[in-house]
């Protein structure tokens, strides 16, 4: 994808302190990931008339991230096909895209206006600020994590480095059995690199799916040749001449490795917001309109701590959602806040992950103690785990069952009831059960 050259000084908005022109207020979006890019386009589509500046720290125009741990690592996705929007799109929508600039200071006035300053000294005066600063990989407090050959995977630069390493690696250890770690493990194994996943919890994907779904996924990965060790923690990393050679586990085992990928979750990038005086607590705290504590600044995507947007939620539970769905849907809602439509963010959160040959799709948000109803599909490898809280369906984890996923996502959005007994009957598809539930008797 073509890198956008950073524009030099002298652009019309490069005059700190110049008075705001209220007829064409300037929207500054800091962070050019999926959420920031979508917010820019959506604000324009929903009627924002003034200038829009979208600033990203990476040297690329906004790109799609999910392939980075999947097809891109296999070399099946060329760089050019990752771009979220064409160059012409930004021009046509009058979005001033600035790349390779790190904002490191924000002056924020009580009315939401202010100035953002980049590390290079460039400054942007804004009338309205949106933060889409994303998240960074969680740091693992382990000895020698700085050895050569120890990687994390978050952005395109990381993915390119990992793809390169995978061409010569002979033993990969993935620390963390979550979505990203397992996707990397599946990709590496398929590419012929012997791979071991080390997960501290007793089951894989422990924070996001039920033990039932995790077990099916683990079985599939093992069958594909991925070695999985659960219930053990890495104690320290070992190296020779500054390069990784092994991972020492807390049960006394030592796994030889010339490549280690650490995938133990992500932390919100909320430092700028904190320094600007916005309330942060596991991310930038926002309301259902995506407004931060000052009532003016917008925060969207992985960096935002928001009220649970699920239709059935009473709004008291707060969380961060790291997903493409949330980035896009929250940004759409935020654009409405900016343009005066003020639609609160309501949506059935959903996630997907390619786990080797399994397509995992999750609709809704389950809690660890939600009960399960397991359904096996008509095609081999099809499993759907429905999650119930009392008598209420709250989520579904679907393996190779896209129809079930779509049916449940819709049912959750419409709050169509699906009694547990009915759900357990596999004589009809979930779509058929739900269609029947919608038809008044």
């Amino acid at each position, binding site marked *: 994808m073509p890198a956008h050259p950073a524009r030099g000084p002298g652009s019309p908005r490069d005059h700190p302190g110049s008075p705001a022109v209220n007829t064409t207020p300037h929207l500054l979006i800091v962070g050019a990931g999926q959420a920031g890019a979508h917010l820019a386009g959506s604000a324009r589509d929903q009627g924002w008339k003034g200038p829009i500046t979208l600033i990203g720290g990476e040297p690329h125009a906004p790109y799609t991230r*999910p392939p980075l741990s999947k097809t891109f690592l296999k070399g099946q996705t060329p760089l050019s096909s990752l771009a979220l*929007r064409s160059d012409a799109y930004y021009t046509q929508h009058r979005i001033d895209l600035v790349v390779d600039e790190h904002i490191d200071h924000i002056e924020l006035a009580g009315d939401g206006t202010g100035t953002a300053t980049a590390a290079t000294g460039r400054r942007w005066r804004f009338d309205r600020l949106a933060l889409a600063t994303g998240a960074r990989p969680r740091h693992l407090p382990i000895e020698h994590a700085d050895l050569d050959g120890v990687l994390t995977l978050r952005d395109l630069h990381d993915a390119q480095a990992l793809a390169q390493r995978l061409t010569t690696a002979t033993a990969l250890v993935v620390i963390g059995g979550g979505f990203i770690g397992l996707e990397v493990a599946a990709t590496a194994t398929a590419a012929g690199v012997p791979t071991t996943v080390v997960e501290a919890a007793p089951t894989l994907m422990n924070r996001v799916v039920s033990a039932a779904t995790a077990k099916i996924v683990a079985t599939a990965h093992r069958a594909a040749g991925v070695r999985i060790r659960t219930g053990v923690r890495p104690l320290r990393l070992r190296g020779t001449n500054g390069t990784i050679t092994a991972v020492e586990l807390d049960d006394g085992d030592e796994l030889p490795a010339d490549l280690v990928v650490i995938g133990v979750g992500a932390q919100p990038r909320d430092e700028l917001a904190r320094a600007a005086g916005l309330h942060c607590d596991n991310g930038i705290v926002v309301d259902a309109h995506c407004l931060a504590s000052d009532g003016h600044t917008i925060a969207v995507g992985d960096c935002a701590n928001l009220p649970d947007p699920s239709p059935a939620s009473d709004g008291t539970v707060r969380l961060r959602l790291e997903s*493409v769905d949330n980035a896009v849907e929250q940004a759409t809602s935020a654009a409405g806040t900016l343009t005066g439509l003020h639609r609160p963010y309501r949506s059935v959160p959903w996630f*997907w992950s390619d786990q080797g040959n399994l397509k995992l799709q999750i609709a809704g948000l389950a809690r660890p103690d939600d009960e399960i109803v397991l359904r096996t599909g008509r095609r081999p490898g099809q499993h759907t785990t429905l999650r119930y809280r009392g008598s209420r369906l709250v989520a579904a984890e679907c393996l190779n*069952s896209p129809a079930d996923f*779509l049916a449940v996502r*819709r049912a959750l959005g419409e709050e169509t009831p699906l009694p547990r007994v009915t759900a357990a009957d596999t004589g009809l598809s979930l*779509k058929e059960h739900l269609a029947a539930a919608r038809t008044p008797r």
Partner: protein
Amino acid sequence: MPKIFYTQPDGRQTALEATAGDSVMQTAVRNGVSGIVGQCGGSLSCATCHVFLAEENTDDFPPVGDDEDEMLDCAATERQDNSRLSCQLILREGQEVHVTIPEAQL
């Protein structure tokens, strides 16, 4: 260079020059063609890139796959015989493709 004609439910048409190897979905999303959401980025996970493919283009693409078939059954706009998920329509050099966008994707 492949060329795609997108027709909106109200009859408005957008013509775009595309890149071989890209999909009909990607080309639409990158250029802001409304009505094609493509939220999952083309991994057959969301069914928000449903289109009706013109009859003359039927044989230009591989047939509907199993997952695509299941997902089309659950698309927001009722499926028709010529329904496709546009993320599965990968373009080749020289193609001219006509698609119509349904009323709703979500």
